[in-house]
């Protein structure tokens, strides 16, 4: 199947690339320019009719560099997903969008949480930084992420994904990648909107979501509010643990989200607040199926204040203050006796962060950014519990990080040199340099990138070291090369290669290991040099018919080691739970003037995991067959005035979707959603209908 798919895709690419190229598109007008001065010419609107594709690849990327640069100039490997692509894909939640990104896959963690692997490496705790408008939303205790019915998709304007390290900018939570969600601001909303998203499977409802947003820009003041209340089911299937016990997931695997985001900007000052209350429900605990479902709560409140002051033409001052409140993995109920492994837990954690920097253009070919960031992580365990290492219920860690970045435009290439040096009271220090060389040659663009990055041990990993071991930061060195070509004004192709080497990987020993090793469970630094190598391809074609986006990724660990926890016994090229090949295609085709249909394909190659145990309770390795997910979405952006609606069917063939565990903890694969029929409606009430009509 893999070969057929690849052949099909290659052929499609070749056919499409031979299209006729149109002459240069200049906006035609009869205006007389001949009397304009240079200044007037410079202020004039662009005379060039850029295609949607050109506009996409020239979007300013905020996450890849301290100074926004276009996708091709940014010193990172980047995927961008626009508002239009999100709307036309019919994405039900953030998982549907991230599933389209090369190299990114979902795996089950524990307590009903599904999180990310990237380039074959399990990446849930501090390896990937998820941000909303630049605010990191990883919880504080473990720096983990939770996916599935989480975050408000209808309010996303753009998602920038840095498929590569980001520690030189963002520190110890961005070792492998950065996902920055940019939400709609007042100037984008200019009114109120209400949206709903409801889904149904043969067995149960799959999703019920209602959202609201309001925003506008009045002179120098811009404000926005958006929020949602949503509940969904992880799966309509049946979970079977490694001991062959089962339970039906509908009603036992609820995912609930209450979320809102308030933003305000006045001149150079901006303030943002995010409230996020997310809850999973599950019965699949580490040691087996529990007698009844339990809920796990993740509460966060984040505030950011930003102030930029242009001191003169060449110098800008940037100030940023952040506060994050986090109550992750909270369970305060009373477990039934049989489920006593499922203990009560409530950690209250706060992060206070200050960042001051300058952006300076000392020479016409040089931009310098430097500054310092300091933050304080505080954790407080309630319910008469104490942290294991310090035997106290209060911990506090300080981190200081001077940083710098220099962008140089030279005749030979654009060069980015940067570094960040983190000094922590918890884990010592980590120096993270980066070097990026980008070069445009006609329609081609090349990037050669090197970056050192790290994962900082979070509060619970610091306090839960095996034998009170003091954890070192996990360190990675990543080398990447990208070649891209704007094949036509409406067609773009990029191919990149990567090589990641990680040392001192922070891994968790589970109880099952302690039987074998004699260690108690807890975190430790792996003595293996883990990592992966591979290739990723992104192809985008956008024209009057609609668009086609194609993404392919491949990884191998053949030239690297792997930690025992992630090893597939007898296989030297794969890690546990992840597929070496992944291919996604998203197309959106206009049907008449008001309708569009968006079919999509998500192919994940074979994976390995543990679904059962032998008589000695050793896991029996299982090969999971490749997974082919077919979806379709029929939508309209203006069938009824101010209203966009769509009807989608996800997993048309009712393929058995699974999220295997990416480490050996004897958690059987968690089933995903089967065939799902859903409806999305978004109704806008513009404050100025005339302006909207124009």
């Amino acid at each position, binding site marked *: 199947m893999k070969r057929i798919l690849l052949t099909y895709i290659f052929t499609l690419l070749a056919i499409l690339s031979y299209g006729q190229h149109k002459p240069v598109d200049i906006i035609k007008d009869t205006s007389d320019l001949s009397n304009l001065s240079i200044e007037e010419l410079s202020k004039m609107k662009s005379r060039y009719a*850029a295609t949607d594709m050109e506009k996409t690849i020239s979007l300013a990327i905020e996450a890849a560099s301290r100074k926004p640069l276009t996708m091709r100039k940014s010193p990172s490997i980047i995927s961008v997903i626009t508002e239009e692509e999100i709307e036309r894909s019919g994405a039900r939640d953030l998982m549907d969008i991230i599933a389209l990104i090369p190299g990114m896959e979902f795996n089950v963690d524990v307590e009903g949480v599904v999180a990310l692997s990237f380039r074959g490496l399990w990446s849930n705790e501090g390896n990937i930084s998820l941000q909303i408008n630049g605010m990191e939303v990883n919880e504080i205790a473990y720096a983990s992420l939770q996916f599935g019915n989480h975050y408000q998709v209808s309010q996303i304007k753009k998602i920038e994904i840095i498929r590569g390290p980001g520690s030189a900018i963002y520190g110890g939570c961005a070792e492998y990648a950065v996902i920055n969600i940019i939400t709609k601001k007042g100037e984008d909303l200019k009114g109120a909107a209400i949206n709903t998203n409801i889904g149904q499977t043969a067995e149960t409802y799959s999703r019920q979501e209602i959202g609201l947003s309001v925003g506008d820009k009045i002179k120098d003041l811009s404000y926005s509010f958006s929020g949602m209340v949503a509940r969904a089911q992880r799966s309509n299937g049946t979970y079977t643990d490694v001991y062959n016990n089962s339970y039906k997931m509908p009603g036992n695997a609820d995912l609930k989200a209450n979320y809102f985001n308030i933003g305000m900007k006045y001149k150079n000052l901006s303030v943002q607040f995010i409230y996020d209350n997310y809850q999973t429900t599950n019965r699949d605990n580490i040691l087996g199926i529990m007698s009844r479902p339990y809920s796990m709560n993740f509460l966060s409140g984040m505030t950011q204040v930003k102030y930029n002051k242009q001191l003169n033409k060449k110098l800008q001052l940037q100030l940023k203050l952040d506060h994050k409140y986090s109550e992750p993995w909270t369970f305060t109920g009373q477990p039934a006796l049989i489920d006593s492994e499922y203990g009560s837990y409530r950690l209250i954690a706060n992060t206070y962060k200050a960042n001051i920097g300058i952006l300076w253009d000392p020479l016409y070919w040089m931009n310098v950014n430097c500054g310092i960031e300091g933050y304080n992580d505080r954790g407080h365990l309630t319910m008469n519990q104490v942290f294991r290492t310090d035997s106290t219920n209060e911990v506090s860690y300080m981190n200081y990080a001077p940083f710098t970045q220099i962008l140089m435009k030279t005749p030979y290439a654009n060069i980015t040199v940067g570094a960040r040096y983190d000094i922590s009271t918890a884990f010592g220090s980590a120096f993270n340099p980066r070097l990026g060389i980008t070069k445009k040659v006609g329609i081609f663009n090349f990037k050669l990138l090197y970056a050192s990055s790290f994962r900082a041990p979070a509060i619970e990993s610091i306090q839960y070291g095996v034998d009170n071991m003091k954890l070192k930061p996990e360190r990675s060195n990543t080398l990447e090369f990208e070649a891209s070509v704007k094949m036509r004004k409406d067609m773009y192709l990029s191919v990149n290669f990567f090589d990641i080497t990680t040392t001192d990987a922070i891994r968790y020993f589970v109880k099952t290991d302690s039987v074998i090793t004699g260690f108690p469970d807890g975190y430790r630094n792996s003595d293996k040099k883990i990592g992966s190598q591979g290739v990723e391809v992104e192809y985008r074609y956008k024209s009057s018919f609609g668009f086609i986006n194609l993404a392919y990724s491949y990884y191998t660990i*053949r030239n690297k080691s792997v930690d025992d926890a992630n090893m597939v016994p007898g296989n030297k090229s794969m890690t546990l739970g992840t597929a070496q090949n992944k291919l996604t295609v998203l197309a959106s085709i206009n049907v008449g003037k008001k309708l569009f249909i968006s079919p999509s394909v998500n192919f994940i190659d074979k994976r390995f995991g543990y679904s059962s145990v032998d008589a000695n309770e050793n896991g029996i390795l299982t090969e999971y067959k490749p997974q082919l997910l077919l979806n379709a979405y029929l939508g309209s952006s203006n069938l009824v005035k101010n209203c966009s609606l769509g009807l989608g069917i996800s997993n048309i063939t009712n393929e058995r979707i699974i999220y295997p565990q990416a480490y050996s903890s004897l958690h059987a694969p968690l089933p995903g959603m089967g065939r799902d029929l859903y409806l999305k409606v978004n109704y806008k009430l513009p404050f100025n209908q005339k302006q909207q009509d124009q």
Partner: protein
Amino acid sequence: MSKIYIKALIVFFSCISAASCYGQSYDPKENSVYIYNFIKYTSWPQKKSVIHVGIVGNSQVEEELKRLFSKKTSNGTTYTVKKITSAEAKTVDVVIVAQQASEQMRSIEQQTARTPVLIITEKENMARQGACISFFIDEENDYKTGYQLSIRNCKARGLSVNEQIQNNAVLTR
């Protein structure tokens, strides 16, 4: 692994070979007004009553400039526009190098080194080859036309450009 790499490269390069070769997308009308202003606000060592503009290669700007100059004079200065070869570059006051003729810059530079000839290229980043002004399309600014200015190259040719030109330029070496 190696097979996949090879497949990826084959696809990539086959697509590249199929890619249409299009150059920068300028509006000749807009560029001709820019050029008129560049000439108007450039001072030559000796005052000129007639400024001769030569165009190397095929450019749509030629027709636009002819049309523009037919109705323009500045302080009694008149203009002529004609197509020239790179060998004739030193016989004019302004050389415009068409996008497709950019490889002739080396020869033009050799012909006109240290002489008061204002060299304007349609291709970007030509200052190192001796261009005074190079047009570019600013992808970061809605694909607007912009220009790079090399004050050093202008000075080396005895030309001075006024603030109007400098203020709106992207300065280069």
